[in-house]
């Protein structure tokens, strides 16, 4: 199995690693870089728990090879807060009790941020469809949607 040397930027930090040719980006993040915020829920791109952004695009990291992201800018949950300042989405998720077990939360936050970066005034339906690629089994999605809508409103006021 051949090894590949990859240079990327992760959460703004230049990051180099060596990985196997068949290793997913998710495996690299979790097993080589210690960035365990992205979770493996299914490894087939169906649950969204591994969501990251690659050059600003929302992606399931289990469907991308570690070798494919040379030169790309990766965004993970670990980069969402600004030092000790939580992103408004993170704050609202806690306030609205939009998480119970919390395993899907990193994926949802990445997906929700991606939505609000592209559409600052989503309707409830738009929020629901934007988040349809992230599975949650605990909450029934109600409080997640409320948290995202509330954050969108707060960001618009700012």
């Amino acid at each position, binding site marked *: *199995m051949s090894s590949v040397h990859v240079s990327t930027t992760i959460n703004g930090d230049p990051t180099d690693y060596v990985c*196997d040719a068949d290793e997913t980006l998710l495996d690299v993040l*979790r097993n080589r870089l210690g*960035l*365990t*915020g*992205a*979770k*493996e*829920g*299914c*490894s*087939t791109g*169906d*649950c969204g*728990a591994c969501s990251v952004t690659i050059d600003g695009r929302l992606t399931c990291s289990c469907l991308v090879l570690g070798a494919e992201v040379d030169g790309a800018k990766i965004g*993970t*949950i*670990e980069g*969402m*807060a600004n030092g000790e300042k*939580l992103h408004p989405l*993170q704050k609202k*998720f*806690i*306030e*609205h*009790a939009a*998480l*119970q*077990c*919390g*395993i*899907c*939360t*990193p994926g949802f*936050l990445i997906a929700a941020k991606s939505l609000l970066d592209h559409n600052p005034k989503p309707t409830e*339906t738009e*929020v*629901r*469809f934007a*988040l*349809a*690629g*992230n*599975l*949650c*089994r*605990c*909450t*029934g*999605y*109600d*409080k*997640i*949607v*409320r948290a995202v809508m509330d954050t969108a409103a707060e960001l618009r006021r700012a």
Partner: protein
Amino acid sequence: MPLDNAESSTRKYKVVGTRPNRPDGVDKVTGRARFGADAVAPGQLVGLILRSPHAHAKIKSIDASKALKLAGVKAVVTKDDLPDKTDGDAGLYDVLVNVMAREKALYQGHAVAAVAATSAAIAKAALKLINVDYEILPHVTDVDEAMKPNAPLLYPKMITDGVDPKPKKPSNIVRRYEFGHGDVEAGFRQADIVIERSFKTEATHQGYIEPHACLANVGPDGQGELWVCTQGHFMVRDTCARLLGMDFSKLRVTASEIGGGFGGKTTVFIEPVALALSRKANRPVKVVMSREEVFKATGPTSSSSIDVKIGATKDGRIVAGDATLRYQGGAFAGSPVEFGAMTAFAQYDLDNVRAIGFDVVCNRPKQAAYRAPGAPMANFAVESVIEELAHKVGMEPIDFRIKNAAREGTHSSYGPIYGPIGLLPTLQKAREHPHFKAPLGKNQGRGMACGFWFNFGGQSCVSMNIGVDGTVSVTVGSPDIGGSRASMGLMTAEELGIPYEKVRTVIADTGTLGYNDVTDGSRTTFATGMACILAARDAIKKLCARAAQIWGIPEDAVTWENGHAKPAGANAGNHPPMSLKEIAAQAPSTGGPIAGHHEYSADGAGVSFATHICDSEVDPETGFTKILRYTVLQDAGKAVHPSYVEGQFQGGAVQGIGWALNEEYIYGKDGRLQNAGFLDYRIPVCSDLPMIDTVILEIPNPGHPYGVRGVGETSIVPPLAAVANSVSAAVGVRMTETPISPPKLLAALEKQSAMKKAAE
């Protein structure tokens, strides 16, 4: 156990009932929280499990010699590494066999061997080198097929228990149960209207997003550590220690954060194997299940086949209810059919009721609990017939249910007489709810159902330690699966009279506390919460004693009020109140650390009733059902943290909606699971659903100081019937099988349309 039932209804709470942020929130929104697969240990090996591709097969031999020769492979285990130490405990023996097959592979996915290697790639290659010689046997996966006289037998010596006279021939029927009272035949003779129907539900999976994962570390001195995502790390410790022949105290288990359980993580699957591998290799071994393995080889629910017959007089009084339930629990005894039988009619006040249950084995994975185990299927059947009966009698379904609802003093269908229960309040509140006034259009319909779960107490230990700075550390042994840390903190702060922010709740490992029962049975806020309250009262006694010593007055001359020790009366002396912080600051020099404890087995859990209302719209061209409106009204006794109570209502309801509309285990003729992934095992996604409205009722449970009732499980019980009833109202077809997926509904609609045409 002192009960404060009078207090709970009139007491004004300072923090209980508010909605502060949960203490582990920041960890979970930043990715810092560590779940089962997030731990690493130096030198760790990757553990992988070899699983039977066949639904039923004799294992003639296992040859792992080639695998052992592969560089990087450090251990291979089979059943020979897990000798039978179950000592006649039949339940534990079944767990052992499920964890690692012995003479037979009993279902596709059944573990037959395992390897530990220095990398995932080597472990995968090693599995391919293990040669298993199978003799394929005929299999059966359907519950009704498994009960037929010529069905392939899983256990050639199994004679059905609970049948008189004892059957002469073996079968796949483990046991027959019967519950009820009165005389159903006599009851039916009094009925003006009788409805009889048969139902089937397919197996579903709890669908937690986090696959099972653990990291085991056992040394040659027989001491071990295990990091695992579980609902009960004490159960894991005791079960694994017994299976591996270790002393309980030598195995320390730490519960990681858990990414969902819902009952599916109340037992062990990979943990004994990981420990056995680690012991053999003398290195840490990490085992993480794939999603496919989770579907194939953990614990889905039973599938069921149920007959229900209910009779009523023309003025709407139910005179008899009779049900026969057939559940398959996978390849081992123990489907929750008895709970299905017990809960089927639990919502009603009946003079004549009977529920018969058959526990059946077949070639499927061993079932595990899924929120109110056994109840949703039974409720689907009974509440569907109730709705139909209401319409036939000419009453509104809600009024029909109110007329026949169980109340305090009712002889329940499963035996005990009910104490104070919240069913009528939920029904009456539902009746007034704006949901009932929402307009309905074409192909839209409204359905309802009410449901119930027992809840129970069990063992909990709490250690409450007061820091010298006056902040409090609460150590509990109940893994937090839904936000319970916040509730423990609220109850502690309430009792001690200090701010919520000054309390931190930590879930400790098995070496730190006495035994804690699994976080299941909706027991945590009730039993562990009550333990926190009692531990706080224990701490208060000690704080008062300390204050008394400092003041030089008798202990019983000191009381506790608003977080302060005060002299009980004017004649106790003129001492200004001393806060918890002030007393704690002096602890080192006045006798040492101050702590409160409580270890017990809680009883007196209160049952929780709920009423659900569902509006749906059916697309007659595709058979697709969209949920338009959904309301949950449920009795919580006392909502300690209302946001997390609402969360339980909503989460359980959505799981039930998924069960009703889309989720099912699909087996091929070869006995293999066809849809072992989230693409084809379709759980509800965000765009499928509306907001789930919730109403919390509070009819106090006399068995808890604040009146708390467990709420986590009841919410999955009514949705199957509520959805089915709404579909029936929308398009006039009665669906008697779940899931009510588009192909099935479309077929039913086409059949209905053909019948209409034929009649014209």
